[in-house]
C-alpha cells in the first residue's frame, strides 16, 4: 500500500512542477498584447488571390495601409463603428476629384515608409492597384469604381498618384478603402517575383511587404504574431505592442479563453455560448449591429417555380417573422420586416412590408397555379449553422403549412459554394456584408449580374436599366429618388427575402476598450486599448 501511495505522491509532485504559472516577464508582455481568438486559419497574407479568406483580410489591414479609410464614430453604447459617409486619410494625406469628376488625384504622406524603411512612392501605389486588377476576384470589385485597366493609373510624381475614369463615379475614392486595395512595397515584391509569377503572388502569401501599423513577427496558419510598427505615420499610434491572432476551432474554448484571461477578444461566438458568457459575467459579451449586413433567404428566381414572383411573395408571406427574430436570432440585430409605407431614399437594406399572413400566401400560391404546393430543397453552409440550423426548421414548418414540402441540405462550405456558382439550388439561407455599403452597390452586386454574390439569381430588365441609367455623379436628391425606386422593386419582387440585419457578436476581456465595427466585420487591433 505504501509504495502505491508514494507513486501517487510523486506523480502529483511532478505535475505540480509542470503546472507552475509562467514568469513575471510574461505577465508584462501580456499587458501590452492583444490576443484575438478566432476559428479561422490564416492560410495566406495576401489579400487577393487563391487562399485569401476573411482572416487574411483582417491580418492584411494590420500589415498594409490603404490610401484611404473611414472615420470611426462613437456609438451610444460606448463602442465605436465606421462611418461610411466620412472618408479619412490613411496613406494619402489628401485627395481631390476634378471638376468633371473624371480624375482623382491622391497626394501621399511625405513621411510614409514601408517596414524596410524605404519611402512609399506613387509607383508602389500604381503597381499594387495594377496587381489587384490582374486578379479577377479583386478586379470585379474594383470595377465598381470604374477601375478596369492599369492604363487608368498614372504616377504624376513620387508622391502624387492619379486615376482617370471614363465617367464620374461615386465609388472612385471609396474602392481604395477595401482590403483588395492594399499598398505593397513593389520593389521588395519584384525582387521575389519570378517569370511565371510576375506579381510575386506566391511570395506574398507567406511574406509581408507592407508599411502598416504592425509588422509581421511570425506566421503560422494557426497563429499570426504581429508587433507594432513604431514608425507608422498613417494614423493614431496603436496602443497594443503585440497582436496575436490565434486559431481556436472550438467556440466554447474561445469564450473560455477570454473568461480566464488567456485571450482578450473572441469572435464568432454562437448564440448559446454568448448567452452563457453573458450570464456568467466574467467577460463582456457584446454585440454591435452591422449596418451593412443582411441575413436573408434567397430563391433561385430563374428556375420554376421561383421564376414566378407570386410564388416568391407567397413564401415571403408565409414566414413567421416575429418567431424568427426572437427565437432564432434572439432579438439581436435589427428586424428587416414589417416596414410601413414607401421605402426610405438612399438606404439599403431596409425592411420589407411583408408580414406573416398564411391566407394571403395560400391565395398567391393558388393564383400562381400551385394550390397543391410543391417540393423544394433548402440549403445552407455548415459554417453558418449556429443560426441557420434552427432557422431552417422554422422555415420548413412554416412553408409546410401552405403545402410547400421542404427538404434541408446542410452543406460544407466548398459544396455550398459549388452549388451557388453552378446556380444549382432552389432556396438558400445566407448572409453577406457589403464592403461598399451604398444602396446601388447592393443592387449591382447582390441583385444583378452573373456573379456568385447575386444569390437570388435575379435578372430584372427594369432594375438593370435603372442601374445603367443612374449617373455616377447624381445629386443627392436624384440618387435618393432612384435608389428608393430600386429598393421598392427588389423588396416587392423579393428574389431575396431580408430577415434581419445582424449584429457582430464577440466576447471581450474586462478592461479592454475601443472595439470598432468596420465594414468588413472583423476585429482591428489598432483600435484596442486597455483601460
Amino acid at each position, binding site marked *: 500500500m505504501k509504495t502505491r501511495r508514494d507513486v501517487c505522491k510523486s506523480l502529483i509532485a511532478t*505535475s505540480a*512542477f*509542470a*503546472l*507552475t504559472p*509562467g*514568469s513575471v516577464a*510574461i505577465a508584462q*508582455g501580456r499587458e501590452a*498584447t492583444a*490576443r484575438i*481568438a478566432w476559428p479561422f486559419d490564416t*492560410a*495566406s497574407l495576401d489579400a487577393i488571390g*487563391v*487562399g*485569401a479568406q476573411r482572416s487574411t483580410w483582417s491580418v492584411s489591414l494590420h500589415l498594409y495601409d490603404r490610401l484611404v479609410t473611414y472615420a470611426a464614430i462613437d456609438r451610444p453604447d460606448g463602442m465605436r463603428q465606421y462611418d461610411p459617409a466620412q472618408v479619412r486619410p490613411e496613406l494619402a494625406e489628401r485627395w481631390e476629384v476634378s471638376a468633371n469628376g473624371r480624375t482623382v488625384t491622391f497626394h501621399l504622406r511625405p513621411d510614409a515608409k514601408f517596414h524596410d524603411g524605404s519611402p512609399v512612392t506613387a509607383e508602389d501605389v500604381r503597381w499594387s492597384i495594377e496587381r489587384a486588377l490582374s486578379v*479577377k*476576384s*479583386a478586379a*470585379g*470589385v474594383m470595377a465598381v469604381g470604374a477601375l478596369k485597366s492599369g492604363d487608368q493609373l498614372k504616377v504624376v510624381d513620387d508622391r502624387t498618384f492619379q486615376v482617370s475614369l471614363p465617367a464620374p463615379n461615386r465609388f472612385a475614392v471609396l474602392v481604395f478603402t477595401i482590403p*483588395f486595395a492594399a499598398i505593397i512595397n513593389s520593389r521588395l515584391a519584384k525582387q521575389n517575383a519570378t517569370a511565371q509569377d510576375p506579381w510575386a*503572388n*506566391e511570395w506574398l*502569401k*507567406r511574406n509581408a511587404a507592407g508599411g502598416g501599423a504592425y509588422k509581421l513577427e511570425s506566421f503560422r*496558419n*494557426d*497563429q499570426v*504574431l504581429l508587433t507594432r510598427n513604431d514608425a507608422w505615420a498613417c494614423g493614431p499610434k496603436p496602443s497594443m505592442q503585440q497582436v*496575436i491572432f*490565434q*486559431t481556436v*476551432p*472550438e467556440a*466554447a*474554448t474561445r469564450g*473560455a*479563453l477570454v*473568461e*480566464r484571461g*488567456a*485571450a482578450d477578444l473572441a469572435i464568432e461566438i454562437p448564440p448559446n455560448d454568448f448567452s452563457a458568457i453573458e450570464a456568467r459575467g466574467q467577460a463582456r459579451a457584446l454585440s454591435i449591429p452591422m449596418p451593412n449586413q443582411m441575413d436573408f433567404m434567397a430563391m433561385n428566381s430563374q428556375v420554376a417555380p421561383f421564376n414566378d414572383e407570386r410564388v416568391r411573395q407567397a413564401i415571403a408571406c408565409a414566414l413567421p417573422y416575429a418567431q424568427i427574430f426572437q427565437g432564432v436570432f434572439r432579438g439581436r440585430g435589427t428586424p428587416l420586416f414589417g416596414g410601413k409605407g414607401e421605402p426610405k431614399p438612399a438606404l439599403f437594406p431596409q425592411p420589407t412590408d411583408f408580414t406573416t399572413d398564411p391566407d394571403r400566401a395560400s391565395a398567391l400560391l393558388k393564383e400562381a397555379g400551385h394550390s397543391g404546393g410543391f417540393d423544394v430543397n433548402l440549403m445552407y453552409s455548415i459554417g453558418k449553422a449556429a443560426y441557420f440550423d434552427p432557422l431552417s426548421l422554422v422555415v420548413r414548418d412554416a412553408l409546410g403549412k401552405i403545402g410547400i414540402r421542404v427538404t434541408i441540405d446542410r452543406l*460544407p*462550405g*466548398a*459544396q455550398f*459554394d*459549388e452549388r451557388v*456558382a*453552378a446556380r444549382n439550388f432552389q432556396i438558400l439561407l445566407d448572409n*453577406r456584408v457589403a*464592403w461598399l455599403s451604398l444602396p446601388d452597390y447592393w443592387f449591382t*452586386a447582390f441583385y444583378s*449580374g*452573373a*456573379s*456568385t*454574390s447575386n444569390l437570388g439569381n435575379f435578372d430584372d430588365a427594369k432594375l438593370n436599366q435603372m442601374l445603367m441609367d443612374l449617373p455616377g455623379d447624381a445629386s443627392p436628391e436624384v440618387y435618393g429618388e432612384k435608389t428608393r425606386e430600386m429598393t421598392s422593386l427588389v423588396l416587392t419582387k423579393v428574389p431575396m427575402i431580408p430577415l434581419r440585419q445582424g449584429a457582430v457578436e464577440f466576447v471581450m476581456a474586462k478592461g479592454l476598450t475601443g472595439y470598432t465595427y468596420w465594414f468588413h466585420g472583423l476585429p482591428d487591433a489598432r483600435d484596442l486599448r486597455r483601460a
Partner: protein
Amino acid sequence: MARNSEMLRFILRRVMGALPLLVGVGVFTFILVRVLPGDPAAYYATGPMATQEEIAQVRSSLGLDRPLPEQLVRYFKDVSVGDLGRSLVTGQLVSSDLRERLPASLELTMVAMLIALAVSIPLGVVAAIRAGSWVDHLARLIGTLGVAMPAFVAGIVLIFIFYFKLGLTPEPIDRIDPFTLKPPVVTGLLLIDSLLAGNVEAFRSALAHLLLPALTMAVIVVAPLMRMTRASMIAVLASDFIRTARAAGMGWWKVYVSYGLRNALVPVLTTIGLVVSYQLGANVVVEKVFAWPGVGSYALNSLLATDYAPVQGYVLLMAGIYVVINTAVDILHALTDPRVRIQ
C-alpha cells in the same frame, strides 16, 4: 549466420510487400478526393463577386480541367520524386508543411501512448491476478468509459474541469505559451528540444500544454490495451510453468512480472501497433479540439477547403507510418518467435 540472412530476407519481403499497398492507397485517395462533392475552383474564386468565367480561370490554373487519368499520372510522377504537390491555400510545399507539423503530432502520440501504457498494463495485470474482484470490475468500468466517450467529448470535459474550473493547466491551445522563448529546432519535439537547450521554462510550458491533449488521447486507448493485457495474462497465469513457479515458492515479482507478464506481452505488442495507428487517426479530432498544430488538424482544414494535395499527402504519410509500425511489429515478433519468420 544463416539465421541473420533469413531475418534480412524476411525484412526485405515485408518492406517490398508494403509498396503495392502504398500505391493502392495513393490511387484510392486520389480518386476519392476527386469524387467527393465540392468544387475547389468555386471555393477559391474568393472575391465577393466571382463569375463563372473567373471560376473557369481558377480551374484551369489549378490543372483541374485536365482528364482524370492525366492528373493521376502527373501526381504519381511527382510523388515518386518526393514532391507531394503544393497546398493551394498556403502556397507551401505539402512535404514541408507536413515535415513542420509532424513532430507536434508524434510528440502528442508518443506521450499519450506512454501515459496509456503506464496506466493500462499495471491495471491489466492486477485485473488478471484478481480476476472477478472489485479491482477487475473497476478496471473494466474505467476502460468502458474511456472507449464509450468520443475523443472530443473527453477533451472538452477535461478542458472544462482542469482549465476552466480548476485553472490548473494553461490555456488549451497550441504547444507552448506564445510568450515563452522557444528552443531552437533540433528534433521538432519540444520536450526534447527544450531540454537540449537547457530551457526549463519552455520545457514546463510545453509539458503543461501537452498534458490535457495527451490525456484525452490516452483515455480512448487505455481500454483495448488493458483488456488485451488482462486476457493474455489470464491465459499465461493458467499455464503450467506459472503453477510450477508458484509451487516453487518464488516471489510475486518473479511469478507475475518476470515470467507472467513477459510471456503475456506478445499479443499486447500487436495491440500496441494497432492502437498507435488508431491514435494517429484520432489525432485529427484531438488536435482540432486543442488547436494543436499537428498534421491531423492540417489535413482536416485542407479537406474542408477541398485542398487536394495536402489531403493526399496526409493519407500517404499515415499509410507510410502505418506500414512502418506494422513492419516493426512483425519484425519484433519474428525476433521473439521463430515460427513467424519461416513461412
